[in-house]
């Protein structure tokens, strides 16, 4: 039996000055790099495929497969870009990881760059986390001084430069193609796919974009092997995962457990619901993943488990809300967020989020009518699957799932206005 918590990525976080090279090297740091540089790059890609590692940035794409898409021998420069834009509401795992253990990310970057034959990598980190950026910069500097970065790394003949790039406040830049445009010094708006970044990414060259937690997992896979990685988690979602628990629990925080852990288990570790007030709703992986309720306490939180239960694993940002929180209010707040962050490129999302906010604000003010619920769902229907990027799809998740499980609460807000509906209000809209 595997233990309930399996610290791998988080195992150094308790060590004093864990962000320094000295501590990192004392705790097996950079041993995986030496091993990797002695292997053939294609063996590393194969090992990553065998491990079953899937992207930790939300979509769960198989990482080794993504690396394998990079054309080799094409004569073009290749790039690795780390998505450290962490902005999905509820998500708070990558920033603490980079703050406490930046070298694990850097070691993962070097190994991955070697595997995909990239000589330049960028860490695109959201701008609002100065202390994290500071530690990343210092870690990169230390890595250069120690010969882990720069020319002829550890005598292997492999060269790599890494730059830490601070973003400037735009959630959409977490979307990988918007991120690339932003990194090229443009407005962060998504690109049409195909071409995918693997063929035309940064500066139109083959590029891998991976999440922080994904790449920080790589050194452990190299050291432990694919089979070891698969001792944790489930068949199609293997490995350990950092679950970020926030909200109305006694002990919010980061809990690294095998994939497939349930909220019931996580709540037990996190000391249960705060002040014993019962659970009402929660997100399994950020606000873009449809809400769950107390019915879903035993859903295994991995890619398949969350999807089978009607949501998504997303970023395992478990935001827990108790019975004191109004669902329409929470949904309104999230919708305000999506409206603010819509990049404006496509009409369904730009206009749709605008109307959704208007309607939800009206309902929360007590001025809605029951037909507003249908209007909301109708607008959602025009956004879902019709938007240019996944931000639009994410924006409707809280609304459609909120109405699915808590329709009565929306109706109760509108009840007082129901009697007018048949007369003046309906007439006004005719």
């Amino acid at each position, binding site marked *: 039996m595997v233990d309930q918590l399996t610290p791998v990525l988080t195992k150094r976080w308790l060590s004093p000055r864990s962000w320094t090279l000295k501590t990192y090297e004392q705790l097996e740091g950079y041993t995986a790099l030496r091993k990797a540089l002695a292997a053939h790059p294609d063996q590393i890609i194969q090992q990553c495929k065998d491990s079953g590692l899937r992207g930790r940035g939300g979509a769960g794409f198989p990482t080794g497969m993504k690396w394998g898409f990079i054309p080799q021998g094409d004569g073009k420069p290749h790039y690795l870009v780390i998505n450290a834009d962490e902005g999905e509401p509820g998500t708070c795992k990558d920033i603490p990881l980079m703050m406490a253990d930046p070298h694990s990310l850097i070691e993962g970057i070097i190994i991955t760059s070697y595997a995909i034959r990239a000589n330049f990598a960028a860490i695109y980190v959201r701008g609002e986390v100065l202390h994290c950026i500071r530690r990343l910069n210092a870690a990169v500097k230390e890595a250069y001084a120690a010969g882990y970065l720069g020319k002829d790394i550890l005598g292997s003949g492999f060269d790599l430069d890494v730059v830490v790039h601070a973003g400037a406040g735009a959630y959409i830049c977490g979307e990988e193609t918007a991120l690339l445009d932003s990194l090229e010094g443009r407005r962060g708006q998504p690109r049409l796919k195909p071409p995918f970044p693997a063929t035309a990414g940064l500066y139109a060259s083959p590029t891998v974009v991976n999440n922080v937690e994904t790449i920080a997992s790589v050194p452990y896979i190299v050291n432990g092997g694919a089979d070891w990685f698969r001792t944790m988690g489930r068949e199609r979602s293997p490995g350990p995962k950092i679950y970020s628990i926030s909200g109305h629990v006694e002990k919010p925080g*980061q809990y690294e457990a095998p994939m497939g852990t349930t909220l019931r288990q996580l709540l037990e570790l996190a000391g249960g619901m705060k002040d014993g007030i019962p659970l009402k709703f929660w997100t399994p992986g950020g606000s873009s993943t449809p809400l769950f309720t107390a019915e879903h306490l035993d859903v295994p939180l991995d890619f398949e488990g969350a999807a089978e239960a009607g949501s998504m694993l997303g970023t395992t940002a478990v935001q827990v809300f108790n019975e004191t929180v109004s669902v329409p209010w929470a949904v309104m707040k999230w919708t305000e967020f999506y409206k603010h962050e819509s990049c404006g490129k496509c009409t369904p999302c730009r206009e749709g989020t605008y109307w959704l906010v208007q309607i939800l604000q009206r309902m929360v003010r007590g001025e809605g009518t029951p037909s507003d619920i249908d209007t909301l769902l109708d607008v959602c229907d025009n956004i879902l699957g019709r938007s240019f990027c996944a931000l639009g799809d994410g924006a409707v998740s809280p609304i459609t799932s909120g109405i699915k499980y808590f329709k009565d609460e929306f109706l109760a807000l509108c009840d007082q206005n129901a009697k007018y509906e048949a007369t003046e209000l309906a007439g006004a809209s005719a």
Partner: protein
Amino acid sequence: MSTSEEVYAASPLDPVETQRLVQETPADTSVFDELTEQRAREIIARYPVPRSALLPMLHLVQSVEGHVSQAGIAFCADLLDLTAAEVSAVATFYTMYKRRPCGEHLVSVCTNTLCAALGGDAIYAKLREHLGSDGKPLGHEETSGEPGAPGSITLEHAECLAACDLGPVLQVNYEFFDNQTPEKALELVKALQAGEKPNPTRGAPLTDFRQAELQLAGFFEGREADLDGPSAAPETVRGARIAAERGWTAPAMPDHAEFPPLPEKK
């Protein structure tokens, strides 16, 4: 010289007038001294393609002026061989680039759903009221006091700041103050107004908005001590601590994990 579509689309003036303004209004870039220009060139040298330097350069510009002015736009445009319109279109897209001069400190309160439910909205309301004048609460991105003067404060509400387990949170110059209440936040802001610099919960001792922007542009010289402080917040390591206490670990790694054989070329 071409001017990008966004500027025309955004301009209430007719295109000819817009073009005249864009091209003819001279911007005085003399506030950007030699050191700043040298730093800008250092930023450009970090990237395979110069234009990638634009976002950090706009942070650099804010470290000098406390916002992105027309002069700041011209400065970036000159060095990157872009039009002012192209730079402007980028600067206006991102929340962290301010169009009006900021106060000595920028206070950002997370009012995204989770923090809001835990008190973030109340914190923001409290600070708006305290920093407002004539019975009018301070608005989003407005400044109390003379921008840049000691004790001046720009207030904003922010989206999720990736610290939800520590919510409700706020930031001063992008340093975190965790687990806030309206009372604590008010006390903090009063201290800032009085010229004090209370320590953030995690992160380096406070400086001011402009110094923070210089660091975001990637310049940390002589600030090594800033790196200190805890590895992580106590809340962050709760899982790791429980595991340590209960002796829970990940399964042991094999002594010599082999790589798979080299796949055959297809």
